[in-house]
């Protein structure tokens, strides 16, 4: 009998307004009381108002931009924009789209092994007091802060003028590879640090060597985090303009080889908009660009959330 009531009592969920004895809960003040309290504290009232105001402003700005781009661009998303070849009639963005994929993909192929290896070195092989590590870190942080136009100038001097004699995809690829290096390294490092030490110890305890532990245990466990970083780096290249104008150039076609010039989607939008004649197509390109970046970032977030749940 006694246990039965205990069970009933345990299963009984007090309704939000009163307890088991039917008395009201008293510790959550009503809105009115809260307002009265705020009246007594003018500083708090002002800060509260400012906080809410800034949240509204931020939300309004996001909606404003997104809705405006959609309204202006969506009616102009014509099939002709997606024809394989560009001409001055269809203003197709497909060549630029393919160039974007080529540049981003190749830049990742170059940057990911270097960035991941560097991150492995920093997390698995060294202590944080190491001088060399400090210099590497500082270099990475500086690289991450360099404005894209400076990358563009550097790429122009080294790759365009000295190495490949002219705007080319390869010049853009190499410039982008350097630009995304710090991003790849940082995200990989974070992913590696999130792998619990017990994994490493477990592997060592089974007699595995350092290298085997890294490749068989640490890197696979950190893979989702690394992939998320790679996707983010991809998004960075897709959105990049200033570093590519003077490296890969503005030719509206997919070149025959990596030595040919070809523009990316973001540059395509720039040239469309700066000519001033193709306002509608520029808005349509903006939609494609935003969608692309958002899908990429969403994918990165999805992957890294999965990663977080694992531990």
């Amino acid at each position, binding site marked *: 009998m006694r246990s039965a009531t205990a069970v009933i009592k345990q299963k009984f969920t*007090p309704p*939000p307004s009163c*307890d088991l*004895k039917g008395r009201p*809960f*008293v*510790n959550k*003040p009503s809105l009115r*009381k809260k307002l009265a309290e705020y009246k007594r*504290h003018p500083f708090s009232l002002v800060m509260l108002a400012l906080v809410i105001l800034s949240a509204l402003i931020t939300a309004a700005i996001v909606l404003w931009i997104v809705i405006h781009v959609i309204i202006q661009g969506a009616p102009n998303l014509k099939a002709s924009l997606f024809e394989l070849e560009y001409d001055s009639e269809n203003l197709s963005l497909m060549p630029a789209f393919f160039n974007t994929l080529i540049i981003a993909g190749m830049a990742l192929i170059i940057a990911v092994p270097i960035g991941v290896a560097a991150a492995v070195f920093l997390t698995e092989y060294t202590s944080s007091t190491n001088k060399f590590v400090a210099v590497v870190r500082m270099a990475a942080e500086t690289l991450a802060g360099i404005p894209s136009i400076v990358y563009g100038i550097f790429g122009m001097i080294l790759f365009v003028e000295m190495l490949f004699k002219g705007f080319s995809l390869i010049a853009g690829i190499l410039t982008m590879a350097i630009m995304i290096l710090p991003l790849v390294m940082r995200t990989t490092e974070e992913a590696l640090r999130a792998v619990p030490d017990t994994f490493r110890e477990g592997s060592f305890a089974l007699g595995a060597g350092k290298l085997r532990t890294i490749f068989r245990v640490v890197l696979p466990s950190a893979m989702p985090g690394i992939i998320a970083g790679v996707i983010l780096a991809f998004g960075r290249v897709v959105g990049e303009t200033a570093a590519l104008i003077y490296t890969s150039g503005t030719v509206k076609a997919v070149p025959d080889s990596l030595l040919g010039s070809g523009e990316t989607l973001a540059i395509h939008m720039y040239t469309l908009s700066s000519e001033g004649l193709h306002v509608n197509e520029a808005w349509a390109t903006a939609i494609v660009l935003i969608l692309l970046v958002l899908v990429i970032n969403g994918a990165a977030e999805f992957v890294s959330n999965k990663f977080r749940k694992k531990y």
Partner: protein
Amino acid sequence: MINNDLKQIGYTRGDKVFPKFRVKDLDLFYGNFQALKSVDMDMEANEITALIGPSGCGKSTFLKTLNRMNDIVPGCRVSGSVLLDGTDVYGGMDVNLLRKRVGMVFQKPNPFPSSVYDNIAYGPKTHGVRKKSELDDIVESSLRQAAIWDELKDRLKKSALGLSGGQQQRLCIARALAVRPDVLLMDEPTSALDPISTGKIEELAQELKKEYTIVIVTHNMQQAARISDKTGFFLLGELIEFGATDEVFDSPRDKRTEDYITGRFG
């Protein structure tokens, strides 16, 4: 003088005499879990009331209902009444003024990451004291009351985080005293400290009870026996036994209290 008399005998309202705190039939839920069950307790002015019991028994939760710090816990719901000098703290009282009257010292010393001076001045500034000279006075008197003035008077501008654990905790007591409270709640104030610092804090509590009402949660039964006037024993959210400390420790009425005190569980 009259004020002092009132403090001795409690607060009168009409023809009723109230203790400092009167808790009546207090229930508290965290979501569906009932953490306090029908707790009744009177805490007298100028006494130290100790709350003991095993971990998770609700003693800290109970302490935090007295200054409504539980309000910030999501899903926490309270019913019943807590009277401070005869006024229900869950009634129309401004919760910020309640917390000014009922100060609190936490389990882990939690000075703000600013200077010693700014830590003490924070409370008075919050409640509208702006004048530098007045703040200076408050800082000095609060630190003196907390018996730490001599140690800290030369490093008022230094970061409070550089102090030892025991000094930090006494700084936090001084910080609580700086807003001139009536009551001081202490939530296991010595559990993170070494024995010497613990001794200093206990001494301080004895000294402070002359002016303040003190409610202290402690894990340490010797501590409760040493410093408190009344002791309440909590178990699974219920107040099992409450009375004068000597009686609770020497001749507990409840078997469970006896078991706990003699160390059979806990």
